[in-house]
């Protein structure tokens, strides 16, 4: 695992980060001054650092869902390319769907994580403008999903577990995407992943945008980074439809229950991976390190299961997903009555 300097933002991109970033800039200035002038400014710097810790804790323990969405989209947030550098070794990218093209919005690669050989499938967003354009800002086309499926099948054939990193605003809504069957491409991946005979670990590292996320996200273990989100629709899209006002995204983000903790409470997520204080973008290295540990632990656990049991467990996981105990029990009881409604004994008038 190569060491990499964390990217600490010097200009605040989020309003609620502003006091922290200003403080950090001040600390940096003082540190530079101390170095240049050979003066000992420790006594001046220490209280500022303490204040920074206090501020971070204060702000980051009271984040609203909408603030978390904005963190998930933070320009300095670690992306697939960072995790490839920090978490994986010996990466061999495999391109193309062998039918139409090579969608840069999804990376598919053979990779090692710890002692495990895996197939890595990950949304890619890109850092520079050029990269972002090439990756279409993380919005994949059908050929991206078909490429992913092809590599999943390759992994299945040779017994490599799948690690998928989810980070997309959503699958691309465009003319070509529709012409080439965006919906069917996603559906096919979902269907095939449900019976893929290798362990699958998925991690939402940033944006879990609807079907575009699920298209590489049917799994045995679903992990979420603390400040990532996973939603059926973007808060903006939901606000535009239900509130008829795109500016109500903040309310929509709350109502949709899209944060890692909310989804954990709803039973959709297996594990929330804590981010360093102040968010993943303040310490890429530390984020990658803890995520790597959690992925390895999940893989180890899944690999110990016999394949038939793993597939059965995955089936059961999705068979009742979202129901809650009450509905599941209701369905099981209704089955015994051949699907007929419960007969409620009417009392005599």
């Amino acid at each position, binding site marked *: 695992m190569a060491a990499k300097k964390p990217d600490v933002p010097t200009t605040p991109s989020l309003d609620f980060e502003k006091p922290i970033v200003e403080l950090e800039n001040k600390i940096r200035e003082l540190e530079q001054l101390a170095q240049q002038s050979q003066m000992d400014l420790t006594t001046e710097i220490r209280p500022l650092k303490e204040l920074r810790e206090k501020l971070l804790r204060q702000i980051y323990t009271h984040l609203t869902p909408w603030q978390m969405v904005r963190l998930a989209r933070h320009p300095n947030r670690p992306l697939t390319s960072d995790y490839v550098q920090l978490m994986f070794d010996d990466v061999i990218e495999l391109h193309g769907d062998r039918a139409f093209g090579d969608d840069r919005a999804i990376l598919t690669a053979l990779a090692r994580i710890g002692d495990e050989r895996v197939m890595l499938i990950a949304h890619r967003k890109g850092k520079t403008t050029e990269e972002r354009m090439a990756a279409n800002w993380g919005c994949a086309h059908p050929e991206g999903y078909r490429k992913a499926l092809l590599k999943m099948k390759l992994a299945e054939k040779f017994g490599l577990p799948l690690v998928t990193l989810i980070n997309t605003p959503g*699958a*691309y*809504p*465009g*003319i070509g*995407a*529709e012409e*080439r*069957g*965006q*919906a*069917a491409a*996603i*559906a*096919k991946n*979902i*269907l*095939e992943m*449900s*019976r893929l005979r290798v362990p699958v670990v998925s991690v939402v590292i940033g944006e879990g945008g*609807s*079907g575009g996320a*699920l298209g590489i996200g*049917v799994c045995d273990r679903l992990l979420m980074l603390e400040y990532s989100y*996973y*939603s*059926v629709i973007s808060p903006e*899209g*939901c606000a535009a*439809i*239900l*509130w008829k006002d795109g500016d109500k995204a903040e*309310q*929509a983000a709350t*109502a*949709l*229950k*899209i944060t890692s903790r909310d*989804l954990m409470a*709803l039973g*959709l997520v297996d594990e929330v991976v804590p981010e360093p204080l102040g968010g993943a973008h303040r310490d890429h290295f530390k984020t990658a390190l803890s995520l790597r540990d959690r992925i390895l632990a999940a893989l180890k656990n899944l690999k110990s299961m016999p394949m038939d049991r793993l597939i059965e467990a*995955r*089936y059961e996981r*999705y*068979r*009742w*997903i*979202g*129901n*809650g105990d*009450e*509905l599941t029990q*209701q*369905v099981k009881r*209704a089955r015994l009555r*051949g*699907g*007929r*409604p*419960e007969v409620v004994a009417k009392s005599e008038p």
Partner: protein
Amino acid sequence: MAWVRFRKKDMPGGLWTKCPSCGEMIFSKELLENFKICKKCSFHMNTTVDERVLFTCDVDTFDELYTDLAPVDRLQFVDKGSYGDKLKATAKKAGRLEAMTIGYGRVLGRECVLGVMNFQFLGGSMGVVVGEKVTIAVEMALERRVPLVLVCSSGGARMHEGALSLMQMAKTCAALARFADAGGLYVSILTDPTTGGVTASFATMADVILAEPNALIGFAGPRVIQNTIRQELPEGFQRSEFLLSRGQLDRIVRRDEIPQTLFRLFEYLVPVAPEQIVAPARPRFEASTNGHDSSDKAEKAAKDKSGSRLPAEEGAEAGKDEKKKKKK
């Protein structure tokens, strides 16, 4: 138990219905007996769940099940009003608890599982119970070893149930994977409109994908696409005919041809012994005095021919010629 039978008094609206496409005034009874297809311009008007059952299954054969599964507001979702209230009001209006209706039925004598989505019910959106009922329909078909037919019409996943809705895409597809592994036949019928999470899951995972003419079918809605790409969308974009030309559908089928088409597909792909085919007890529509085309005759003809061959390749206007032939 809900034996669905269409009665005259259930007829919606007045005596006359105006075609939303060409403006033709059509006698409502006549319109119904023409499967709610405009006789002048062939426009396929929206159907209710009961009409869809009537247009698809033999009379009195549809046995609706799992009617008491009701959606739950697990997120306590509130936008301009509460989701719970919205559900109550919608259910009252729809006469059913959810946007999905499932049951066993017969199509020209062949038993199958039929699922019908109701676009009038919160845009036919897929929440947990819709996903659950689709999955149960798959399991019912698997259990009785009969074909599965899902008539789709949906704006996508239901926002009010958040990621729980999203996960229904995985639930339904996982069940369909098992059904496929067991050799089950699944035919989906895409009707106007079918988009979003429904298209991106069970609707497009059928062995045979049929669509009604001119239905809007897609992943993203046209407005979303237009707002994203900021250019005019091509003529007929995301309509059945467009999808067919792009290789995304197996066939476009007129609504009045759906029973025959299903029957013939069943007989081709999963034939059964003749004694397992139960002739419809009564004609689909009460005797009509207006001398209007009796589709029942056509259906009977199709049945007599059953097990023979599909006609030579037809165009998008499928069936029209065939029907004329049969009338002779």
